[in-house]
């Protein structure tokens, strides 16, 4: 079902794109991904689990998991949640492990790109890093897996908190537009090269410079790029956490980011009746946005004894009549082929389920907002030192004040450097971008670097900044230890 009326976003009717799913004709819209077009047409089952034959829908919706792999024009394992929809394509469900394809993978000869700085990820951190870097006269290549730049900003329809410098009071979607305008201006001046619908696949042997492989997808074929750079900034974001309960892989159990992407980027209604799991800011914000899109939010359950997100977000939902139950969690999902309901359970002070406290509710969608894990695989492959820091959301790279990791010239920013939020990601991006430019001799503006760091400290000063503050303190200490040992 398409969202046609929305209080914040103007969903214009787009050009119709007919395509085939299991040989049956379906009509999507220009700008859709394959998965969003299928969802709009009522197709929620995209694949089956490898071990069992149980149906699966997508989970993360942003290209980070393997729940949406399908065969497109004969090419298997296409991540349909980020693959753009094209007219006339053949989309099929795969048999278990897909067969090796006959289609040509590298249809074009390898191309070489020489650049000062490679930036992986064009979300808030990556975009700010690219803009900051290019402004200092350092050449930049920025690569992102999605069709559009902006990362998760392009679905943040709420007004941002923070201060004037971080565009407080402006909606995330408008910040994304402002950043993209800045990026495209620098692109037209040939200071930045932008590569979308592309993936940086790894770091490779090289004499002097860093050498990365990047694959640009083109009509579901790929072009390989040999990217040589002097520094790299990894702003790869994060991945939604899964929760363990029976039925968690049924189509209709989605990550909060997937739900937000479907409704706010592609204008597709995720479901009619939604259960939200998790009352942190993400769970609260996405719940409110579901109401704005026209869904019913049955309730929000939170395992902790208190609401983790801001009270102002919780209050908005409560005055719309949405119940928030703390010390409650989901026990299991009900339904054969799709979500039909859920059993909730009350938890005691030790987070243990209380006997006979189960309650059944009817819903067609379950949305998990139970935290994120930094995407650090590329960092690990490069050989950057990683440590497990619970407050940062998992394994992260210890980095210094300039966001430089244990490997010289390798920087990190945003959620990939520890889970936080967009305002701080933008500042971290600016720091990494400027620091890389300084390292490469493009700038001497250390004063500005200090100013950015002060802004970060201010944003983290309150009680809600405690977790990232602890995480970043641990990261700084580990970075010192590691630098000393080197």
């Amino acid at each position, binding site marked *: 079902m398409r969202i046609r009326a929305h209080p914040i976003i103007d969903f214009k009717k787009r050009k119709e794109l007919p395509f085939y799913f299991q040989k049956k004709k379906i009509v999507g819209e220009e700008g859709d991904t394959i998965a969003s077009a299928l969802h709009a047409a009522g197709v929620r089952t995209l694949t089956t689990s490898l071990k069992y034959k149980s149906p699966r829908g997508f989970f993360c919706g942003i290209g980070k998991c393997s729940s949406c792999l399908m065969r497109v024009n004969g090419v298997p394992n296409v991540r349909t949640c980020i693959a753009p929809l094209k007219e006339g394509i053949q989309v099929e469900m795969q048999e278990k492990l897909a067969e090796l394809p006959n289609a040509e993978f590298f249809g074009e000869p390898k191309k070489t790109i020489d650049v000062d700085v490679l930036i992986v990820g064009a979300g808030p951190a990556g975009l700010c890093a690219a803009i900051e870097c290019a402004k200092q006269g350092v050449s930049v290549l920025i690569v992102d897996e999605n069709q559009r730049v902006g990362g998760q900003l392009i679905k943040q329809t709420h007004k941002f*908190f923070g201060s004037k410098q971080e565009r407080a*009071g402006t909606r995330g979607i408008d910040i994304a537009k402002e950043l993209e305008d800045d990026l495209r201006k620098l692109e037209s001046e040939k200071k930045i090269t932008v590569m979308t619908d592309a993936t940086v696949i790894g770091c490779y042997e090289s004499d002097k410079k860093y050498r990365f492989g990047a694959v640009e997808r083109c009509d579901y074929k790929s072009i390989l790029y040999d990217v040589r750079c002097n520094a790299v900034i990894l702003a790869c974001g994060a991945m939604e956490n899964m929760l363990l309960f029976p039925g968690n892989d049924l189509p209709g159990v989605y990550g909060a980011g997937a739900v937000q992407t479907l409704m706010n980027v592609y204008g597709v209604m995720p479901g009619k009746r939604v259960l939200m799991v998790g009352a942190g800011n993400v769970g609260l914000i996405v719940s409110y946005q579901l109401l704005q899109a026209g869904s019913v939010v049955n309730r929000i359950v939170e395992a902790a004894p208190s609401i983790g997100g*801001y009270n102002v977000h919780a209050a908005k939902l409560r005055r719309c009549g949405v119940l*928030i139950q703390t010390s409650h969690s989901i026990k299991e999902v009900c339904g054969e082929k799709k979500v039909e309901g859920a059993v909730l359970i009350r938890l005691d002070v030790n987070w243990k389920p209380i006997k006979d406290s189960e309650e059944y509710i009817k819903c067609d969608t379950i949305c998990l907002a139970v935290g994120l894990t930094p995407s650090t695989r590329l960092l690990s492959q490069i050989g950057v030192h990683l440590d497990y820091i619970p407050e940062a959301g998992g394994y992260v790279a210890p980095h210094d004040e300039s966001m430089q990791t244990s490997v010289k010239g390798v920087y990190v920013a945003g959620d990939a450097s520890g889970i936080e939020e967009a305002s701080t990601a933008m500042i971290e991006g600016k720091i990494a971008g400027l620091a890389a430019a300084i390292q490469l001799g493009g700038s001497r503006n250390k004063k500005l670097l200090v100013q950015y760091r002060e802004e970060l400290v201010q944003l983290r000063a*309150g009680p809600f900044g405690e977790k990232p503050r602890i995480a970043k303190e641990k990261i700084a200490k580990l970075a010192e230890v590691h630098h000393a040992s080197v």
Partner: protein
Amino acid sequence: MRQYEKTGILSIKDLKIPSKKQFEKGVAILECVQEIPCNPCVDSCPVHAISMKDINAPPVNNFEKCIGCTKCVGVCPGLAIFVIKIKANTAWITLPYEFVTVPKVGDVVQALDRKGKVRGKALVKKVVKHGKTMVVTIEVNSSLAMSIRNIRV
């Protein structure tokens, strides 16, 4: 733990309440009690009634200075500011609204409290667009001035 941390609902006790005289001229009630890094309301105030010790401190409204102009209502990212004006038995509540069906002046809408419970009807007196946020003024009985915080159109 405070009750609102469990329920999400603020009680009157969590808020600073203006005097009768201050209510008569109209004042902004800032239902923002936690330390969160946010300050657009401070910048939006034309008479500098709203202040903050630092960006994380909860905002404080000086009810003597506040002129009830409603500028802060559409600015607050948390949709947490309400302007209340009371004269005799009538109260006017100005609140932020971000849903598809926008009310028109003269409409009678449902008036909801902080729990989302319908507490009666309200007459729409004014609708001002602030970007995509609608700033709506409704008229209710004065006894509901500090209870009604939402409308259903």
